[in-house]
């Protein structure tokens, strides 16, 4: 009984604000100003229509974020996998030091890097190139990715690779046939966490992208917030919030296992 109450409270706390947005998004402007009064025309889809037919349409931001997320994840894994493997093959003390440095980098509030990265983008003309964002994203998620994958490599029995060496497999062949398949669960966890990070990242995207058709979802949301010209724009905000949340809610529901195991393994071993 007591527990049921607590669980209810927990769910209300976690999901209440989201459900309120969902409710708001279907309310007419009139209904919004009097949320608990009874009004004839309470329900409407107009906010969704507005958001989806705006210029550029809302789904464009989702596509942009998806592209950036995928390319960043790919780049991050391509770099982190060999590095995580090599971290086990360097002298022990050096390896421990590098792992400590990586933990420090993972803790670092990366928002402070925005200025350096902005100068970088200016210097190399990377601004307003959507895929160029994968470069800082891959770098920023590198510490976590290397740590997680390194844990996974550590957990592999070394004989598997030794046996493959004796079979004559080169390093690349060992990666292809043994290491990559065997750490695929950890790789999946890492990939999802990196994807989440890239999808949600704000300050770097804010400074690197200004062209409205190339915005990623978080920046687009912030710009919607700043640029609204409606008197009560919250119906449209809420519709945008709901549309922006759906992909991630689905992602969490589908991939909850790898996400939890990724976060947990980072915590337990890091």
């Amino acid at each position, binding site marked *: 009984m007591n527990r049921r109450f607590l669980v209810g409270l927990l769910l209300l706390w976690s999901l209440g604000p989201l459900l309120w947005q969902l409710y708001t998004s279907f309310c007419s402007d009139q209904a919004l100003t009097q949320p608990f009064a009874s009004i004839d025309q309470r329900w409407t889809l107009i906010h969704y229509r507005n958001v989806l037919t705006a210029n550029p349409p809302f789904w464009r931001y989702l596509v942009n974020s998806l592209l950036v997320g995928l390319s960043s994840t790919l780049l991050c894994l391509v770099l982190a996998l060999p590095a995580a493997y090599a971290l086990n093959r360097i002298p022990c003390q050096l390896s421990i030091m590098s792992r400590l440095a990586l933990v420090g980098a993972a803790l670092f509030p990366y928002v402070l890097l925005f200025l350096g990265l902005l100068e970088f983008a200016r210097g190399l003309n990377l601004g307003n190139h959507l895929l160029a964002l994968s470069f800082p994203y891959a770098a920023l998620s590198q510490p976590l990715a290397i740590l997680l994958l390194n844990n996974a490599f550590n957990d592999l029995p070394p004989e598997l690779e030794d*046996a493959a060496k*004796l079979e004559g497999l080169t390093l690349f062949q060992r990666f292809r046939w043994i290491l990559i398949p065997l750490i695929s669960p950890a790789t999946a966890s890492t990939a999802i966490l990196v994807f989440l990070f890239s999808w949600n990242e704000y300050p770097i995207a804010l400074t690197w992208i200004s062209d409205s058709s190339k915005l990623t979802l978080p920046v687009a949301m912030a710009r919607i917030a700043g640029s609204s010209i409606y008197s009560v724009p919250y119906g449209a905000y809420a519709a945008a919030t709901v549309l922006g949340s759906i992909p991630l809610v689905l992602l969490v529901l589908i991939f909850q296992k790898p996400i939890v195991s990724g976060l947990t393994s980072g915590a337990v071993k890091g």
Partner: protein
Amino acid sequence: MTLQIQNLGRRVGKQWIVRHLNLQVDNSECVALVGPSGCGKSSTLRLIAGLDSVSEGEIILDQANVTHAPATQRAVGMVFQSYALLPHLSVKANLDLGLRVRGVRASERQQRIQAILDLVQLQDRSEVLPAQLSGGQRQRVALARALLRDPDVYLLDEPMSNLDAQLREELRPELRRLVLDRHKPVIYVTHDQHEAMAIADRIAVLHSGRIQQVATPADLYHRPETLFIAKFIGRPQINCFKPKDGAICAVRPESLFFANEGLPCKLISREWLGSSQLLYLDSPHGSLRLSCSTTMEIPETVHVSWHSSDEHHFDATTGRRLT
């Protein structure tokens, strides 16, 4: 085809894991490496396989110096204690992988895998994942993989220690058949001296990273070079008397017999071993182990004696054998 290691050593930091190893293994010969855990058996094997780097000395395989050749280029077939089968690949794919990267044609691969599966009697399990096999079957797959490699030397790293005792005895003759018929040098690492004596032509005893003695099982048993070997080889363990004049006298439990005259002993306990029984006795020279026939009735107090030819003498400080 012979394997020769000369003055081999490996150092990690300032510590020598193994050092001054000298060993020659001939064609069709099986040498067992035995010793307590941490004595450097597996390290030696890994040096020969090329999995660890050599700090000093040389490894010569069929007159070619392979001391610093990478593992991928040495023709070494190795069976690991944990079998090291790839859990995500079927038995067939496990066997196929090495052949494929070595560039064997598909049809030939198929044929050779089939043949080797027949040999290890796993014809019907080729599509199965390793997790679905029993321990003995996994071990045979691991062996099959080593055989397929057609190596110049076989290295077996405690291949049976994960199996239960009964299975081990069953597999031993099979292992001999499969591996020794290949007419290649074989090194067999085990911590089980029975297994070593059963399977090996010669046994090398390692202690703290050094080889103490290399000899046939019989020699090792009857003429142990050091006190350590005398104690390590042979069960029940050899009896050591208290040092006298800088020498230790040791007598095997089965060399002791009851006599009317001799060392007066008190029976402490007895263990029944089926074909024999082991008596724990308390004597003026310390406690003694004696094995004798089960039919014998043992009184509380006995007198024990032995032939002086059965005595082994060792230097009390160096542990070396005194002739």
